């Protein structure tokens, strides 16, 4: 197969080998999922992408729908994209659309909070403008690992985008997973992203959805909805649908402090470390394991992560003698 790949054949083969070894274990690896985005390209050359839709989520969060030059790509929930605003810079964002949705529409989505140079510049862009994209990057969620098991998805604030990708992927492959529970906490009702989708999840029969906010507004109070940090949802869960530890996989994304406390709750309920899956956030630049910014211990969050199990994180902390979360 290597033969006839042309000038960059060797390199592509290495990339494929890498993908194979990364995903071999979960049986997910395939040449077909890894579209030829890297094929023969300069590692740092972004693919042009046109913005086809911009949706306001909250006052400082927008979701961008992008149409990539050269067609759709395949990816895993939890993988991320490096998005460039030319002249300003490049920043990593979790892909918030699901691979199944991308297959249907040909687009990918990222959800971006405006906090700095690149993100603010992105927010100023309009439909029809171009950005650059390098994707998919990172390992993604070990979806296979959760197959046939009870799934608990815990999201905090802007940590939801990769989980939304995961959830939508699971909903599109509903029969492969057990009971799915979504716990979502945000600071205020206005800070909640994907409001339309949240309502839909709440309505769905094949999905258990609980949410809470730290500080309620009038509307929230009127509806009599829950107030408190996301960990306060666990006691409710205990009553409603107790966790069966070895058969449960939890996916946790959000601010580090929230991850910290959620993991404590899960540990209390004896969920094995290997079944607690979270993402690490680090300052990232290249996204391909070269620039060193994201390194923690001997791992690179951009290529070895951003998804790690709690077991891996603990080992990592021990090896590098510094806290990971």
């Amino acid at each position, binding site marked *: 197969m290597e033969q006839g790949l042309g000038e960059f054949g060797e390199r592509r083969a290495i990339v494929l080998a890498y993908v194979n070894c990364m995903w071999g274990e979960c049986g997910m690896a395939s040449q077909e999922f890894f579209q030829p985005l890297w094929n023969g390209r300069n590692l740092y050359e972004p693919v042009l992408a046109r913005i086809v839709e911009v949706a306001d989520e909250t006052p400082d969060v927008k979701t961008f729908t992008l149409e990539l030059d050269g067609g759709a790509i395949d990816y895993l929930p939890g993988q991320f994209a490096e998005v460039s605003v030319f*002249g*300003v810079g490049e920043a990593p964002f979790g892909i918030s659309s699901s691979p199944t949705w991308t297959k249907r529409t040909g687009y990918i989505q990222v959800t971006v909070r405006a906090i700095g140079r690149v993100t603010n510049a992105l927010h100023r862009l309009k439909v029809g403008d171009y950005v650059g994209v390098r994707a998919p990057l990172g390992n993604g969620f070990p979806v296979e690992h959760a197959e046939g098991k009870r799934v608990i998805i815990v999201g905090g604030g802007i940590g939801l985008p990769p989980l939304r990708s995961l959830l939508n992927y699971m909903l599109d492959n509903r029969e492969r997973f057990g009971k799915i529970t979504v716990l979502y906490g945000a600071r205020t009702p206005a800070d909640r992203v994907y409001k339309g989708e949240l309502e839909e999840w709440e309505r769905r029969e094949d999905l258990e959805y609980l949410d809470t906010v730290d500080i309620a507004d009038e509307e929230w109070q009127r509806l009599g909805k829950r107030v408190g940090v996301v960990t306060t949802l666990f006691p409710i869960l205990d009553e409603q649908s107790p966790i069966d530890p070895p058969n449960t996989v939890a996916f946790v994304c959000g601010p580090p402090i929230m991850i910290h406390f959620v993991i404590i709750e899960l540990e209390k309920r004896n969920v094995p470390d290997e079944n607690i899956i979270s993402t690490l956030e680090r300052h990232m630049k290249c996204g391909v394991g070269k*620039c060193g910014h994201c390194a923690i211990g001997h791992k690179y969050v951009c290529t070895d992560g951003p998804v790690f199990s709690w077991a891996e994180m603990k080992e990592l902390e021990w090896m590098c003698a*510094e806290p990971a979360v």
Partner: protein
Amino acid sequence: MALLLRKERLDDFLQSLDGQLAAPVRLEHGEVHFAINPPVEQILQDSDYVNSTISPVALLFPQTEVLFKFKLNGKPQIELPKEPKPLIIFGIRSCDVAAMRYLEMFFSRKFIDTPFVERAEKTTLISVACQRPGRNCFCPCCAGGPFLEEGHDLQLVDFGDAFLVEVGSEKGMRLIYARGQFFEPAPYELNEQRNKLAEETLQKFEIASHMGTGVRKLTSRAVSDELWRMMAARCIECGGCAFVCPLCTCFDVVDHSLPCSSNGVICGWRERCWDCCQFAGYSMEAAGVNPRPDKVSRFKRRFYHKLSYFYMEMDGRVGCVGCGRCIQVCFGVVDMPAVVNTLREEKLLGARLR
């Protein structure tokens, strides 16, 4: 196979090489830099110099490097850098060859770093084995020299009026095949003499750095927080150690742009520039959280990365080739050998209080 290159033929040999030639030259005030296509008579040969201020690996991974240029006129247009020209680095030292081989491994691991790897593929290293180590050199402690057994394309060993030429790779072999006229077969005894020279050179080193002890101490967590604090106090976070280190690869990526004066179209480029893990902004995250918030944790990170066994497992070697450049640049005498020796003796030179 060993060959002999008479010194009077060296100039002709260098001139016969295709592509750009990078070679060490001495500047007015005495510094040694690698220059591109310098006049042949200015090129330093073996005993004229110890090593260059900055490693020649910077020719392949320069402090700033344009990744691509772009024009924003409707749909953006991206212009990638031109294919690199073939490059021959003459006079590179053993430690830097070892570093280059590490960088090649690093930059093609998992993903292939196009700018570096494209250059590396077209680069040939003609190293000159060291017989006169500098006062800061400690390569024998790090498998970095002074004589190379592997890694070079060609290695020259100085025998007074001639160089013994050792071929280390196919690239080196091809170079010689095409230029047979400059070489003659080397007498067999030279090989033995060469080994003797290598032995003798080993005796000439002034400093040592017990890397093994360092690795052990770090991997087994045998270093007290107090010692880390004391060492980090002397670091002024200049970044120099990372910038001169031929094994350090970290970089930052930035965009620049400006409206073109004639038609207002925005033109710009994206570049990468060296970065250093000792800088506070290096690891600062978007939410304002810094996983390595203080100088001590950053300092620790640097040496864990270079010395801990777990990192070696991934990188295949300690993160040091013993070139000694960090000794020259460090403001606080907390360079690699100083730190390793401090770890070994568990006592920091100069510390007074406590």
